[in-house]
């Protein structure tokens, strides 16, 4: 029984980080109706950004999350103006192809720079034990950081002028413009914010697990499941969706082979799409 509880707790801790990764995707999707397929690549860049800050600059990996977030934001704004701005409001296939192209370029450059070898951030924080089961400090801190960032983002969207502008543009772009809100700049900032969060999530994942240039795509897939669970454009919903996904993963693994987990995840994905097309936590949406 303790084993099942330990597995579920492990799942919740990792799930919070899945939730954070999904927040970046759901924010962009919700605000500008763009399914951002650079999401996985940006998670990867967050991993390598943290790795370089840790190994080359000697920064504490948790402190290094700040420059990773800043660079992620800047990269997001650049990607917005280069590949997204002209396709916002156009058929979804255009933004899918556009962001997918950027994704291929980023992964291609990453492969040239770092090959596809596994990298590892050698940080180990003391955790706690329940019987023979140990929970690492890295997992606890990553989960706590994910929750804090999700809360901060919710407050930002609900309480600040910039956040309200993002919500206004998401709600009705033309009306927002008539009120004097520069919608393109707001969308660029929202895109930058989404990428910054994806990069930070990538950085946190890099403190937990080894990674390669190709790792981001796995977390991108999980982000889609979490986004559907949590509802479009809803950061707290995405966090809750991530935690729920982790809980489900942790809850079933003691009883079935781990290779069944992706099957269960994507069966859930389809079921939620059919039964709750707006997500399980849709009523709390900020839109």
């Amino acid at each position, binding site marked *: 029984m303790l084993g099942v509880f330990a597995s579920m707790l492990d799942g919740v801790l990792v799930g919070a980080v899945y939730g954070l990764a999904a927040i970046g995707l759901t924010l962009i999707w919700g605000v500008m109706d763009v399914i951002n397929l650079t999401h996985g690549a940006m998670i990867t860049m967050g991993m390598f950004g943290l790795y370089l800050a840790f190994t080359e600059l000697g920064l504490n990996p948790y402190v290094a999350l700040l420059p990773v977030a800043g660079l992620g934001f800047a990269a997001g704004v650049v990607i917005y103006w280069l590949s997204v701005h002209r396709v916002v409001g156009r058929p979804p296939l255009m933004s899918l192809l556009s962001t997918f192209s950027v994704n291929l370029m980023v992964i291609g450059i990453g492969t040239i720079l770092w090959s596809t070898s596994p990298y590892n951030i050698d940080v180990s924080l003391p955790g706690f034990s329940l019987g023979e089961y140990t929970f690492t400090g890295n997992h606890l801190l990553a989960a706590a950081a994910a929750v804090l960032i999700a809360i901060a983002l919710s407050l930002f969207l609900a309480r600040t002028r910039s956040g309200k502008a993002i919500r206004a543009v998401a709600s009705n772009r033309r009306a927002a413009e008539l009120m004097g809100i520069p919608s393109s700049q707001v969308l660029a900032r929202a895109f930058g914010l989404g990428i910054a969060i994806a990069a930070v999530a990538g950085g946190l994942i890099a403190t937990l697990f080894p990674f390669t240039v190709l790792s981001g795509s796995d977390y991108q897939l999980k982000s889609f499941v979490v986004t559907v669970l949590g509802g479009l454009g809803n950061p707290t919903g995405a966090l809750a969706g991530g935690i729920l996904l982790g809980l489900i993963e942790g809850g079933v693994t003691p009883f079935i*082979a781990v290779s069944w987990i992706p099957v269960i995840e994507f069966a859930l994905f389809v079921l939620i799409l059919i039964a709750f097309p707006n997500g399980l936590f849709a009523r709390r949406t900020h839109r």
Partner: protein
Amino acid sequence: MTKQHRWIIAGAMATLGFAGLVASGSSVAAADVVTIGFTESETGALNVDSIGQFNGFRLWRDQVNAAGGITAGGKSYQVNLAFYDDQSKPDRVQQLYSRLILQDNADFLFSPYSSGLTATAAIISEQYGKIMITTGASEDKTYQLGNKYLYEMYTPASAYLTGALDALKTVHPKARVALAYADDAFAKAVATAARTYVQSIGMELVFDEAYAPSTTDFGPLINKMISAKADALIGGGHYADGATLARQVYDHKAPLDFISLLVAPDSPKFATLGESAVNVTAPSQWAPQATFKPDFGPDPKTFGDAYRKAYGIEPSYHAAGGYAAGLILQHAIEQAGTIDPDKVAARLDQTDVETFYGHVRFFTDSSRHGLQAGHSMVIVQWQKKGDQLVKEVVWPRAGATAPLAYPLH
């Protein structure tokens, strides 16, 4: 300078260039060249494991060419390697081996790295009747399909973990064993044999599960091993998953007394895991401390020194396998006195030779033609000597450089 002068100079340069091309072309034509084609996984999941093998091929080529080439029938053949990045993907292997044969006119082939990719390449090599020396590909099944031109350098997968279990039996005869292995052709073949062997030597298999080769979070698996009260872990797959599993077993403080994982711990890179690597064992096709007395080619020390000089790192068994693949092909060509594939294949069938890599001989009956019959494995363990991690041979006892460190921590 007038326009006319410019045209004259340009014409002269073009003529010189053309002459240079002719000279260069004729010099290539004058030398006899044997082309060996292969793919390597410069990118993708198998990249760490593939690099060692690739380095081994290149070192062999450089040394053979520097010594005048392969001598056969009174001719000296310079070795030309033709290779591409297969991105660790079978579909790329299929395209590229066809290209190596049809466009690059490869005379012989080396295998890609891994059993899965080699199984794909073998379909092409057999279709065109090309000899392929396989290395880094130990799944038995590929050699039991009636292939005629496939020759395996590695001890087959079915024997990979038996040595580790024999070593464990000496210190814990009734061990409760967890078997966690990558869901790929090679690891599954190893696991199938290990599962039977665990029970045959009186140990209890308390956990038996495959995981996706791309797994990065082993937490759920480790928790299940702890719940099953396992005291030994065997399994793994390739470098990325094996190194991750070892690190997370350490981070989770799993109460395991013995770990033996495929492939990953043999890589020099495994030592970068620090404390997580301590006392982890691995079955290895070869170790630099080997003391084989070769009938052909360099001795283990000469090979090890040359490899360190060329690449600045310790040779892994993948590197040794790559070099030895070239050596065995060279031996067969020299014995045959020709590069005619059927005659070289006939000599490969008769191969019975000791090299720096150990004994090499192939089964020749049709049910398992080309399967390795002469080579045997060792068990290596990362042991802490002061602040350094050193890879020691701990099994078989006859060839051990240190006793098995047990329990793990």
